[in-house]
C-alpha cells in the first residue's frame, strides 16, 4: 500500500551536534488521516517534520539515515520545489512566514512560483480566504494584523499551494485564545475536506481533532498514553 507519508527507521543528527535527535523513528500516515505528535520541547518534533517536507536534507545538512517517502517516492529523489507541490507546512512563528505588502500578494506568491495561470490564482485567493474566513482583509498589510490573523494568512498562503498533505508545527503556540479557536475550526474544516494532516502539539487541549496521537520520545515515535503528560501542559 502507498501512504501519503511513510517514514522508515529514520535517524538524524544536526551538523556539529553529537546527539542523534531522531533515533529510528517510524511513521505511516494514511490518506485523510490527522495525526498529532506530542513531545517535550527540544525532543525533535520540528526536526521530524523538517524531514517530511524536505527542509532536511535540502536546506539543513546533517547526517540522515533511513527513509522518508511521500506517496511512495523518496524525498531524496525530489527537489524541494517538487515536494512543495505535495507537502505544505505552516510554522510556529507567524512573523517569519509573511513577507508581502498585502494579504493578496502573500497568498499569490506560492501559486505564482508554480506557474499557475493568473485567473486560477484569483480563484485560489478567493477560495482560501473563505476557508480561513478572512475575506475582508484581502488588501490589508499582513504586518498590521494580530498574531492569530497572521497565522490564518500563513495557513491560507500554504493552502493556496493546494497540497494534499499539511504539516502544522505548533501553529497555535504564539496565538491568543480567540485566534486559537478560529484556527482550530479551520483545521477541523481541512480534515473534513479530506486533507492528510500532521499536527505538532504542545497543548493537550488541541488533541481532540486528531485521529491518533503519537509521542516523540528518545528520538522514536510511540503511541501516546494519557499517563505520559509530564512536561505537557493544559491551558
Amino acid at each position, binding site marked *: 500500500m502507498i501512504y501519503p507519508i511513510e517514514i522508515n527507521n529514520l535517524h538524524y543528527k544536526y551538523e556539529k551536534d553529537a546527539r542523534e535527535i531522531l533515533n529510528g523513528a517510524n511513521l505511516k500516515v494514511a490518506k485523510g488521516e490527522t495525526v498529532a505528535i506530542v513531545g517535550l520541547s527540544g525532543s525533535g518534533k520540528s526536526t521530524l517534520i523538517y524531514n517530511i*517536507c524536505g*527542509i532536511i536534507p*535540502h*536546506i539543513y545538512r546533517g547526517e540522515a539515515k533511513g527513509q522518508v517517502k511521500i506517496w511512495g517516492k523518496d524525498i531524496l529523489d525530489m527537489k*524541494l*520545489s*517538487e515536494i*512543495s*507541490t505535495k*507537502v*505544505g*507546512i505552516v*510554522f510556529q*512563528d507567524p*512573523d*517569519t*512566514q509573511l*513577507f*508581502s*505588502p*498585502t494579504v*493578496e*500578494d502573500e497568498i*499569490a*506568491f*506560492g*501559486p*505564482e*512560483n*508554480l*506557474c*499557475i*495561470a*493568473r485567473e486560477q*490564482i*484569483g480563484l485560489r*485567493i478567493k477560495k482560501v480566504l473563505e476557508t480561513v474566513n478572512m475575506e475582508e482583509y484581502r488588501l490589508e*498589510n499582513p504586518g498590521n494584523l494580530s498574531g492569530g490573523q497572521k497565522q490564518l494568512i*500563513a495557513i491560507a*498562503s*500554504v493552502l493556496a*499551494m493546494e497540497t494534499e498533505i499539511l504539516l502544522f508545527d505548533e501553529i497555535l503556540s504564539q496565538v491568543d485564545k480567540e485566534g486559537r479557536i478560529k484556527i482550530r475550526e479551520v483545521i477541523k474544516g481541512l480534515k473534513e475536506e479530506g486533507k492528510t494532516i500532521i499536527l505538532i502539539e504542545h497543548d493537550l487541549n488541541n488533541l481532540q481533532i486528531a485521529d491518533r496521537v503519537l509521542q516523540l520520545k528518545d528520538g522514536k515515535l510511540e503511541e501516546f498514553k494519557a499517563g505520559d503528560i509530564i512536561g505537557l501542559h493544559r491551558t
Partner: protein
Amino acid sequence: MNIDPRTKLIIVLCLSTLAIFIKDILFLSGILLITIMISLFFKVNILQVLREIKRLLYVLLAIAVIQSVFSTDGQVLIGLGKLTILTTVGVQKGLEFIIRIMIIISSATIITTSNSREIIQGLVQWRLPYEVAFMVSIGIRFLPILREEIKDSIVAIQLRGIEIKKTPLKKKLYIYSYLFTPILVSTIIKAQKLSMSVEMRGFRAYERRTSYMVLRMSYVDYLIIFFSFLCATTLAHLYIDQSVLTLSSLKRMSYFVYNSIRLRKFL
C-alpha cells in the same frame, strides 16, 4: 489616481541624476524645490523626511570645515591665527552637499508610495530577474526586523537596571558590542525561518513564474514620463549653457586683466 511604480522610478532617476551632475547651488535649490513639490503631489510626508535629514547637519558642518581647511579658495570666515577653519567656499560646498542629499532622499521617498510588491513587479516588467528584485525587497523588509531586534535588546539591558543614556561613552560602546552577537544571531535565525517558508512555497520551482499582479501604464504615466525627460534635459541644457557662459566670460575677463597689466607695463 494610481501612478505606475516605473513612472515614479523614472522621476526619481531624473531628479537624482540632475542632483549628482549639477554643481551650481542655485540650480540645486531649484531642483530641490521641484522635488519637494513632486513629493507633495505624491502625498509623501515631506516633513518627516526633512526631520530625518536634520540628523545630517553634522555632516554638513564636517564637510564645510574639511573643504575650508584643505582648499585655499574663498574668503576666510572663521580662522584661528594662520589656521583657516571656515571659508565661503567651504560653506558653499557643504550646502551643495546637503541640498544634493535632500534631493536624493526626498525623491527616493516618492517610490515608497508604491508597495514593495508593486516595485518588484515594475522592475520585473523591465526585465530585471525576479529573484534579484525579490531579494532586494526581502532585504528591505528585514530592516524593521533588525531595528526591532536592537530595540528589544536595549530594553532587555535596561530591565537589568543599566541606564544606557547615563553611562559614559566607553562603557556604552562596550555594552553595544556585547549586544552585537545576540542581535546578529537572532536576526540570522529569523532570516533562516523566512527562507524556509519562502522555499516551501515553491520559490524558484521553475525558470519562469506567473504573476497575479500585472502593471499597465496609463496615458497619464506616459505623459508624466515624457514631461520628466523634457524637464530634466531642459534643466541640464540651461545649466550647461550657463556654465559655458560663465566660462567664456571668465576667459574674457582674464584677457582684459592680462591686457591691462601689459598696458600698465607699457606705460
